[in-house]
C-alpha cells in the first residue's frame, strides 16, 4: 500500500478519518477545498507540497488568510492518525482515492467538476467505476411491477456485460444489484453509510473478492446513515452511468425525487422513468418534466435493451464538459 503525497494531503485536509465527532479545526468542505486547490494552482504548487512547507512559507506563497493557513497546518499535523486509520482500513479491504489519483473516476471530474468529491473510499474492483452501465434508482418500497423491473434490469446488465449502478440501499437497489451479481454480472454500489459494515455480508464479500462488485462512498467508511448523505450521493450514481432508470418515485419528497429532478436538470445522462398503468405519482410527473418513458414489461428481446436505450435517448444532447482540477 502506498499513498501519493498529493492524495495524502487531500485525505489530511478533507477527510474525517481519525477525527472526533466535533473536530477543531474542522476538515475542509468541498467548497473550501476547491478554493484552496485554485490558490495552490495559481502558486504553481501541488497539494503534496504542503507537507514540506511550514506555516510561514504557505502564507508567503499561497493566497490564503493567516488563520486559514494555521488551520491547514493543524490538519496536516494529523498524519499519525491518518496513517494508523488508513492501515486499518486497508487491512479490512477498504481503500481511499482522491481527485489527485489517476484511478479517480474521470466521469466525476467531467460531469461534476467542483462538486466531485475530493475523497472516495471503496472496496472491491475499482476499475468498474465509470465502465458502461445502467443506474437503477427508486424508493425502498415498491410494488410488484417495480420489483420485477428492477430485477430485470439487473439481469440484463449481467447478460449484456454492463455495470449495474445503484445506491446499495434496501429495495430497488438491492434487488437490481443481487439480480446482476447472481448472473455473474458486475455492479457498483454507491453507499450513503457504513461501507465497513456493508462489506461483511458473506454474499457481498464473495462478489467483492471475485472482482464483480465495487462499493464506494464519499463519506467516512464507518459513518452512520444520514438523510443529507443519502441525498448527496445521488449525483454520484447518475454521473457514473450511461443511462438511469427511475423505477419508483414519490412527489416532491424523498431521495429518488430529489436525485431524479437534479439529474434531469443537470443533463448528466438520459433519465428513463418506469412507465406503467399503476405507476407512482412521482413517475408521472417526472415523465412530464422530461424523463423518457421506460415501458415494462419491456416490449423487445432483453438483448435489445442497451441499443433501445441509446436510440430512445438520441433526442437528448449531452452537455459539453470540461475537466476539473484536483
Amino acid at each position: 500500500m502506498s499513498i501519493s503525497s498529493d492524495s495524502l494531503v487531500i485525505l489530511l485536509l478533507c477527510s474525517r478519518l481519525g477525527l472526533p465527532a466535533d473536530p477543531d479545526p474542522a476538515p475542509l468542505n468541498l467548497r473550501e477545498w476547491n478554493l484552496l486547490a485554485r490558490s495552490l494552482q495559481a502558486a504553481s504548487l501541488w497539494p503534496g507540497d504542503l507537507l514540506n512547507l511550514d506555516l510561514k512559507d504557505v502564507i508567503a506563497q499561497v493566497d490564503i488568510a493567516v488563520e486559514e493557513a494555521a488551520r491547514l497546518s493543524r490538519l496536516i499535523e494529523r498524519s499519525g492518525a491518518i496513517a494508523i486509520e488508513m492501515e486499518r482500513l486497508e487491512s479490512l479491504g477498504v481503500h481511499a482515492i482522491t481527485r489527485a489519483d489517476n484511478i479517480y473516476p474521470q466521469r466525476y471530474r467531467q460531469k461534476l467538476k467542483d462538486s466531485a468529491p475530493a475523497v472516495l473510499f471503496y472496496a472491491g474492483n475499482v476499475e468498474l467505476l465509470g465502465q458502461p452501465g445502467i443506474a437503477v434508482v427508486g424508493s425502498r418500497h415498491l410494488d410488484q411491477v417495480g420489483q420485477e423491473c428492477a430485477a430485470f434490469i439487473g439481469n440484463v446488465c449481467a447478460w449484456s456485460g454492463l455495470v449495474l449502478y445503484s445506491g446499495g440501499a434496501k429495495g430497488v437497489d438491492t434487488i437490481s444489484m443481487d439480480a446482476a451479481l447472481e448472473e455473474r454480472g458486475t455492479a457498483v454500489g454507491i453507499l450513503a453509510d457504513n461501507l465497513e459494515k456493508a462489506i461483511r455480508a458473506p454474499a457481498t464479500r464473495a462478489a467483492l473478492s471475485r472482482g464483480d462488485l465495487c462499493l464506494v462512498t464519499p463519506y467516512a467508511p464507518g459513518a452512520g446513515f444520514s438523510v443529507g448523505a443519502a441525498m448527496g450521493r445521488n449525483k454520484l450514481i447518475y454521473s457514473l452511468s450511461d443511462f438511469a432508470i427511475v423505477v419508483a418515485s414519490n412527489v416532491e419528497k424523498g431521495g429518488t425525487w430529489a436525485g431524479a429532478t437534479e439529474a434531469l436538470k443537470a443533463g448528466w445522462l438520459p433519465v428513463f422513468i418506469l412507465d406503467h398503468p399503476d405507476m407512482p405519482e412521482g413517475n408521472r410527473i417526472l415523465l412530464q418534466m422530461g424523463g423518457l418513458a421506460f415501458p415494462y414489461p419491456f416490449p423487445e428481446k432483453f438483448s435489445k435493451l442497451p441499443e433501445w436505450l441509446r436510440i430512445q435517448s438520441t433526442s437528448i444532447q449531452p452537455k459539453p464538459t470540461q475537466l476539473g482540477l484536483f
Partner: protein
Amino acid sequence: MIGYAQALLRNMLGEQATFRPGQWEAIEAIALKKQRVLVVQRTGWGKSLVYFLATKLLREGGSGPTLLISPLLSLMRNQIEMAKKIGIRALTINSANRQEWDLAESALTLNQCDILLISPERLSNERFLKSILPEVAGRVGLFVVDEAHCISDWGHDFRPDYRRIVRILQLLPRGVPILGTTATANNRVVADIQVQLGPELIVLRGPLARESLRLQNIQMANQSERMAWLVENLPKFRGSGIIYCLTVADTERVTGWLKQKGFQVEAYHAGDNTKIDRPALEEAFLHNEIQILVATVALGMGFDKPDISFVIHFQRPGSVIAYYQQIGRAGRAVERAYGILLSGVEDDEIQNYFIESAFPSQQAFQEILGALESHEALSFEEILAHVNVARTVAEKTLKMLEVDGAIGTTFDGKTLFFRTPNPWQPDSERIDRVLALRRAELSQMQAYVDHTGCLMEFLLRALDDPDPRPCGRCANCLGKEMNRSVAHELTVEAENFLKGISIDIKPRKRWPVGLFPELKRVIPSEVQNCPGRSLCYYGDAGWGKLVRNGKYVDGRFSDELVEAAARLIYNAWKPDPFPEWVTAIPSRRHPLLVNDFAEHLVAQLGIPFLTVIERTGEAAEQKTMQNSTMQARNVIGTLAIKVDIPATPVLLVDDIIDSGWTLTMAGYLLRTHGSGVVYPFTLAQATGRNVSS
C-alpha cells in the same frame, strides 16, 4: 540546545549526569531535524532517556504527543517516574487498565499528555482507534517503536503486530520523526529494518559487551544433575538472580525443589491455570524480597533490575540473541555478574517443539477461514465450535490472519471476527524462511555451548558488534570455572524429588460453547468432579519415563508405579471424605491396561474396584482433538453407566489426562447416577499443550 538538554538530563538523573555517546546525537536527529533513527544499544544504555528528552523538546516546540509502542509497558513504571522530573506526563493504555481509559481520553482532550504508551495490539483495537486516538486529533509528534528488531523477520522475536506497525510507519510523511530502539539487532536485521523504513533511516549503534559479565557453559544430561548443581552452587553467588527454564512445568519443578532445599525462590511464567501475580513478583524481586526468580521468557525484554548478579539457564535457549538478551539482565550496576548456561538432553526436543509449533498449520488457516467465510461474523468461542484447532493455535492463527488483512475484528459486546474481501494466500515461502532461520539459530546456539574460545567474543560476533574482542573474564579466557560435577547423593535426592511431585487436576466448571445447546454452560457444582491428582508429567525424568514404558513398551504399569500412586493418595493427597471404592475409564486401545493398574491399586488401598463405566461407541483418540468443544464432543455418547452404583465417594482412575473432558464426562455420569463425590486420579498429565510461555 544541547546545554538546555543537558540541564534537563541533570534534572532527571542528578547533578553528575552527562550524555552517553550517541544519546544527544539521537535526540538531535529526532527532535531538531525530525529524522528517522534506529538506536541499537544494550539494555540499560538509556534509550528511554532519548525519547523522553526528545518528547520534551518536541512538545516545547508545539508538537503533538509522542506515541510509544511497546510490548513491555508494565515494565516502564520506573522510567515514567524518572520522566516526571522534567515535567513529562505519560499515560499508558493497555488491555489491563481499561478503567483508566476514560482518564486518558480526557487528559488527551485537554492536551495534558506528552507521551502515550500503548501495546502493539491497541493499534487494531476499535475503542482506541475510534475514541482515544481522535482526541489527539491525530497530532502524533513522534513515533517510538520499542523492540524494533521485531520489525524484521530476521529478528529472533516473532510478533505479527509489528508488520502492522511497519505499514503505519510507511504511510507517515517525511517530517514526522520516528525512533526505533532495540538492544539486539545484527547487521542483517538492521539492513532489513532500513529496507522497510527507508534508506534515510539513521542507525546509531553502540558496543554490546557488558564488562561485568562472566560466562560459563556446563553440559549435564539429566535434569536431576542440574537440579543438584543448582543446590551446590547457588550459595556461591552473592545478590539476586534469575534461573531461566524453557517450560512452565520446569519452572514449577525447579522452584519446588529449590524451596525444599531452603532457597528463597519463586516461579514466574505466563502459563495457563496459574495464580501467578507477575507484577507483584516483579515488584518483590526488584526490592530484593525474593532472591531468585525461576522464570520462562515471560520475564521478558526490558525487565530492568540493575543489581542482578547472576543469570543461570537451566536449559539451552533457542538462539544466541535470545541468550544474550537474557544474560543482559545481569550486571547492569554490579561489578561482577555471572551468566551460566546449563544444558541437557531435553533441550533439543523442547526447542524443536517450539519451532514446529511456531506457525499454525495450513489446516488451521483453512478451517478458520472456511468458518468465517460462511458467516457474517463470529466470536472466538463460536469459531472454536466450528473448527478442530486448539485454542492457543486458533488465537495465533487469527492474529496472523488479521495482520495479513484476511480477517478483521469488530466489537459488539464481545470481539467478533469477520472475513475481509482481501485475497489471502499462505505465505509459505516466508514461513519456510523463518523456520530455516530458527533452525540455523539453534545450531549456532549449540556451537556456543561447544565453543572453547572466549564466550563473550562468540556472542558479540554473532550479534555483529562493531568491536568484538576476547573478554578475559569468561571461564574459557580464565581457565578457571565453577564445578562441572555434583555429589551423587544430591542427584539421587533430586530424582526422588521429581518422583515425589504430584500435579493437581482442576475440575472443569463449564461445558464448551456449542456442545449442549439445550443446557446451560455452567456444570452444576453437585455433578462436577472434586479436585484430583496426577502422579507426574508424561515422559518426565521422575515417574514419567515409567508411565511411557508401561503404556507403550510393557503393556502394563509397573508395581513401582502402583506403590507410588498409593503413597501419593494415602500420604500426600488424603482426600476427605476418603473414597470408598475405585472405578476406571475403560481404555479404547489397551482394554486391560487401566483396569489392571486399578486392580493392583485397590489391593494397596484396601477398597473395592468396580467396573461400572462402559464404552458404548468408537471415538477418535482424544489427543487428535484440538480444542475443548471438539474434545468434549468426541467423548459424548461414548461413555455410559448401566448398573447400580454405590452412593459413596469414588476414586476415578485413568492413565493419562489430556483435555480432561473424559474425566469430566465420566464424573458427570457417576454423579447423575447417584455416586458420592468423584476424585479423579491419573498416572500422568500430557505436556504437549501449553508447554511454552
